């Protein structure tokens, strides 16, 4: 009798564990909040902004720098900031596809081009470490592999999210129910800390010279090597091209934007790289707004992420520039 009870307990454990994994895996496929809260939370806000907004896809520079509410007032039509940290053209393509699948039809797409994210190499595109496999669906895994993501980097994590989602998606779940239990960079809560138009207030209001120097040095350590060996014609550029083709098919006008950078950051670009990037982007055949020199060094806290006043100044200038390039 005791042995029978023990056998029942063991089999029940196995069965219920499998059910828990399968159940959550199914839920994760059905609801993007479980797989990619960074996207889902922004999408939830976007739905409240209204139909056909001007949409800006970009990285943390966009997230902190594009004051979409202000932009909307200046241009007279709603705008939304879909900036997400550590993203580049391939992630933007994934996000654009998701938005279109969900029926979002922007009036205009402002597309940030973050030059370091154009980097490509044998190890994969620069954004590969950030767009982890568990954030993607099976079809999206195939898509990112098409643009150079290494299968051995992206597939195991995606696979793990299918058969062990409670482990694989733990940061997404804990980041929602108890964010303070995780380090800030694993919380996936960027999309929940924005204003109704998706703009995140910059975390700092001022910095001392020493703090700025420290932040700039950190940015240098993060980007200098990438920029030194950067070939802007790699697979991320193909992803940009795919975004433009997709938008063209849906009749969405696109303007690319090079976001503002401080003089210390711009000094990291090796000689000639500016020209090559500009040439590559011009070859795509859509308007390009080069805003790299729009802000002063004091407008940034680390050479490329602006303070609030920097974001406001950039947004005002962008509104004027967009009016200039709008068809």
């Amino acid at each position, binding site marked *: 009798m005791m042995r029978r009870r023990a056998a029942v*307990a063991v089999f029940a454990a196995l069965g219920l564990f499998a059910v828990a994994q399968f159940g959550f895996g199914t839920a994760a496929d059905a609801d993007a909040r479980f797989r990619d809260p960074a996207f889902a939370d922004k999408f939830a806000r976007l739905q409240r902004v209204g139909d056909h907004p001007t949409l800006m896809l970009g990285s943390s520079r966009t997230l902190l720098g594009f004051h979409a509410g202000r932009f909307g007032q200046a241009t007279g039509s709603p705008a939304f900031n879909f900036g997400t940290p550590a993203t580049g053209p391939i992630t933007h393509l994934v996000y654009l596809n998701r938005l279109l699948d969900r029926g979002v039809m922007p009036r205009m797409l402002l597309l940030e081009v973050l030059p370091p994210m154009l980097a490509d190499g044998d190890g994969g595109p620069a954004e590969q470490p950030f767009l982890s496999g568990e954030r993607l669906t099976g079809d999206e895994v195939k898509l990112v592999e098409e643009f150079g993501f290494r299968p051995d980097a992206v597939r195991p994590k995606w696979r793990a999210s299918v058969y062990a989602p409670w482990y694989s998606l*733990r940061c997404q779940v804990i980041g929602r129910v108890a964010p303070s239990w995780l380090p800030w960079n694993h919380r996936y809560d960027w999309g929940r800390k924005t204003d109704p138009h998706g703009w995140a207030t910059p975390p700092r209001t001022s910095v001392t010279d020493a703090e700025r120097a420290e932040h700039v040095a950190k940015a240098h350590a993060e980007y200098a090597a990438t920029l030194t060996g950067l070939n802007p014609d790699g697979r991320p550029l193909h992803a940009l091209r795919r975004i433009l083709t997709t938008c063209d098919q849906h009749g969405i006008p696109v303007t690319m934007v090079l976001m503002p950078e401080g003089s210390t950051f711009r000094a990291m670009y090796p000689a000639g790289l500016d020209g090559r990037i500009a040439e590559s982007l011009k070859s795509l055949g859509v308007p390009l707004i080069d805003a790299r020199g729009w802000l002063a060094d004091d407008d940034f806290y680390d050479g490329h992420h602006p303070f609030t006043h920097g974001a406001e100044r950039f947004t005002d200038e962008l509104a004027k520039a967009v009016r200039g390039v709008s068809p």
Partner: protein
Amino acid sequence: MFAVDPPPTEFAYFRALHDLLPEPFFHTQAFLVFFAAVAAVYWLIPRKWNLARVCWLVLASFHFYAAWSFELAFLVLATTVADYLLARWMDATDRKKRRLALMLTSVGMNLGILCYFKYKNFFLDSLNEALLKLGQPAAFHTLKVIVPFGISFYTFEAISYAVDVYRRTIKAERSLPHFLLFILFFPHLVAGPIVRAGDFLRQAHRPKRWNWLRVQAGVQFFLLGVFKKVAIADRLAMFCDPVLQEPDKYGSAAVWFAVLAYSVRIYADFSGYSDMAVGLAHLLGYRLTLNFHQPYLAVNVSDFWRRWHVSLSTWLRDYLYIPLGGNRGGAWATNRNLLLTMALGGLWHGAAWSYVIWGVLHGVFLILHRQFRGWTETKPMWAKVLESWPGTAARVAVTFGCVTFAWIFFRPDLAGSLAVLHRMFVHGSGLPLPLSNTSLLVTVGVVFVGMLLWRSGAFQWVWTRLHPTLAGAGYAVCLTASMLLAPPDGKGFIYFTF
């Protein structure tokens, strides 16, 4: 994960093995696949072919070790064979001097290997530092030596075997495969529990039947171990690791919290590993010593050592403290023996002076407790107060405080330990804890509530009356919670470095 990982081997077979099982950790997917394959074949071998089952486990254990470093796996194999032969020879002779010489050869070989791999650089560094202090240049060159994992555990098992055979407490094992399994059995090979030959070999010779009760016990222990390791220990590491590495950057309050987190982390990490080892052994039909009995509910330091790393503390008692004279030579000799045993116990944990200090601190606590106990025996009122409920709670708190204080030295970096102490007792402002204090206190609270429930018997009472389906649901929830609460980055086992 290890201080020095072995270089990649030239042999394709072992290189492939390493790729399949890169870390000797029990809570990894690769290990679970390995274990499932080993257990499946093991139970498919007919019961009457017990020797074949033993040989299969020896083969699996060798591969488990060789996946990390096949050269060192052969070293362990070779010394185990040598221990086997020396013991057989010892058993075969009645000449006392020869028996003594053989026992000393076996013990010397094991201690020699332990000293060479683990302590050589420590002694040479200490000598060099002493020479520098005397104004002389450093005269000894240290070598980059890969410390075989689990070396402190299996050498102690081999030493106790040689001594037991010499004392004629047990007979020398006649079967080489059985003896190899005693040392190499993979659930206890890496970090114990330190098993005794008499207990283990008796089990190895007994043919085993598949038993669902045992399987349930194994699953239960394993899942409890995974939860302790992943959801508690690794989570607490997020609080204590950054703070203890750079205490000067953090405020004093953060350092106090980090020390608390470290104390509970060490318990959850090591007892979690031990529970997993016990669980895996159960699944193969073996019973290993339970290494922990709610140690942080101990009412004094002596009680703590009856509950903490039981297989080591009993080993030190039987093979060091008692041979040194134990408590048979009066107060002074007893205190000396305690201090010596604990200092060597500290050194066993790691080749650094900080571990020696940790051991000495425990020796001092044990001596103080002996004195205090002697004093209270003459004061019945005091004894009554201490036995009361609040008195017991106070004793538990004081013991936990002493043990936690000593843990500050339980790391290889003595200067770092002193910096932590300085930050704790000299108030300074700085960064807060890396994560919210609430999550730390909840995690620590779960550990203490768990211990109290276990100690009171409430857990066992509920568990034995629970419908088996609900028990199964409990296991599934335990594993799912472990997965969910695992921190973003995995951590190694603290005791694997010993």
